[in-house]
């Protein structure tokens, strides 16, 4: 898939994966800060109204899990076959984002602090999903093994993050 030799690729792969891990640490801190603010705000006031329970937010995880499954298949393939997997993954990611936005329709920003947090947290998730879609399209363009591997780890992380955030918002309400 790549023109560089394995010896040349290994340091580049290590740099990319280390950078990705560092970015993951920063993202974890961002969401840790927001979720800890959520926990504190929930605990200190008497104006907290839980979000309406809904299955749609959790259903939105299914397409993005599909993205991860497609990427794990793509890593075992050679071009041009991977292009199909990556494009399908991008479409599924877009569907997942649309489902998130569908949930927005039923929630008013100022209805309750919980709703305010929902918009902040979900907006942050959507930013990461948008970056993930961009990364999928970028991987289509270059079709490098390193890029596909990195994007697959990225989407695994985003899926875990989505599940955690939605659990805070809609389960531990």
């Amino acid at each position, binding site marked *: 898939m790549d023109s560089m030799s394995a010896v040349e690729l290994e340091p580049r792969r290590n740099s990319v994966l280390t950078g990705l891990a560092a*970015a993951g640490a920063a993202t974890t801190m*961002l969401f840790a*800060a*927001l979720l800890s*603010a959520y926990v*504190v*705000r929930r605990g200190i*006031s008497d104006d907290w109204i839980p979000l309406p329970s809904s299955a749609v937010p959790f259903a939105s995880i299914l397409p993005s899990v599909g993205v991860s499954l497609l990427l794990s298949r793509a890593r075992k393939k050679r071009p041009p076959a991977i292009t199909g997997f990556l494009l399908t993954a991008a479409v599924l990611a877009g569907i997942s984002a649309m489902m998130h936005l569908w949930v927005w329709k039923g929630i008013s920003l100022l209805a309750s602090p919980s709703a305010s947090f929902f918009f*902040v947290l979900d907006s942050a998730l959507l930013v990461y999903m948008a970056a993930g879609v961009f990364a999928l399209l970028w991987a289509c363009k270059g079709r490098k093994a390193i890029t596909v591997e990195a994007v697959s780890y990225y989407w695994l992380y985003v899926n875990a993050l989505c599940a955690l955030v939605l659990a805070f918002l809609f389960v531990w309400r």
Partner: protein
Amino acid sequence: MRRYLFTTDHKIVGLQYFWLSLIAALIGVVLSVLMRYHLVYPGSSLPLLQRIWPTSAAGGVMTPELYLSLMTMHGTIMVFFVLSVAPQSAFGHYLLPLQIGANGMAFPLLSGLSFWLTAAAFLVLLSAFVIPGGAPLSGWTAYPPLSALGSIAGPGEGLGQTLWIVSIAVFSVASVLGAINFIATLLEKRRAGMRLLAMPLTCWNWLVTAILSLLGFPVLLSAGVLLLMDRHAGTNFFIPGGLVVSDQAILHKGGSPLLWQHLFWFFGHPEVYIAILPGMGVVTEVISTFSGRPIFGRTMMILATFAIGFLGLLVWGHHMFTSGMSPYSSIAFSVLTMTIGVPSAVKTLNWIGTLWGGRIRFNTAMLFALGFVSIFVSGGLSGIFLGQPVLDLYLHDTYFVVAHFHLIMGVAAVFGIFAATFYWFPIMFGRMMNERLGKAHFFLTFIGVYCLFLPMHVAGTAGNPRRYPDFTNFEFLAPLLPIHLFMTAAAFVTALAQVLFLVNLFWSMRRGKTATGSPWAAETLEWTR
């Protein structure tokens, strides 16, 4: 022009950061001199002020609001655009790949991107000076509810505060991108054969600083986003109920200003280590080189660096001893704060141990390194007092705190920057700086900062509050006015002394003696390339 706009060359990016932080430092120093002048001559008229701020300084007299705006911008510019940029981003981008034998940073695109985001953040911040309402006045800590209520809270709290938050948010993103780049470069791009433990100590300090940036700035970003929402979307993250401002009831309720404090200081304390650790790395290298000896206790220095970084993430509550938190929490934060003194002392004793018995060359870089050690110890000692909750109840928000953080963070870190500039000037510009001018600059600055900040401890223990635009109306503070006059005179002399540095810098770039090989007989890799 295209070369500089789109560069990903780590040396050019390093120089871009260097010049940005120099411009920021000059603006910050001018603001501080204006503040010091106003404190001792509060009613006096300066025609220049009227030209720049015709509304806030009508007749050339600084209003209290303008003073607080200058104070806010001074703190923000110095902490973010000088202390978080020069030691890490400027010298780090330039020297780090050279020191580890890499052919560049791990992600060159991120180098350029992080610089231009930083530059954009700087311009956004500076624009607060020229917009209607002016710059914010809530301090570099931007505590709500003052910072969350909008223009009703005061001049500068409208668009000015919003621009401040946007600037800090963009700076946070830039810092995280830079940190990712530093960590990947240090861990994966060392030349073959250079084990992690063999890395120069400057690189270890850059690594720990990058880790602190990675973990701290996202928290600041999250706090900034929530504050923006409170200001513009009507949410209630930080604004409590029951507020009446300018005879107007504020309809927000349920939020917590303490929540902002926790989020801010969770970032804010690691930030002070982000400011000082790279300087410690430079000082270690300079002391070792100009003592003619390897650093004493190399492994312990590495462990101490990590200990400072790790403990720095755990002590944010010592900025909040007077916030009403549980005394048991205060005890915990106090004990951890004292513990940071241990690795700091390890570093100080190791520097002294390196000097002991060495063949010391007292050139300018070494003088600034020694000055760093002196000022770091002086500033650190006052921190031990502030780390006791009982004492901090009295000293909080007095000039004692101002003296402490200016010495240990402002001056010491700046001495690290000066040491780095003199030390690495031959690599960065191919020439040597003038030693005579350098030494004159050092002695004037060293004496000047001690004259400026040591008496400040006296003012603080006498109960002089900080962030007051005018305390000449308070009878109990009248006896302290001579001290303030002395400090203002020292501030003027110290500020003027920096002209020597500027003359030396620009003259040496053009006319300095050409540098060849390793002019300091240093043994790290950057001198061999």
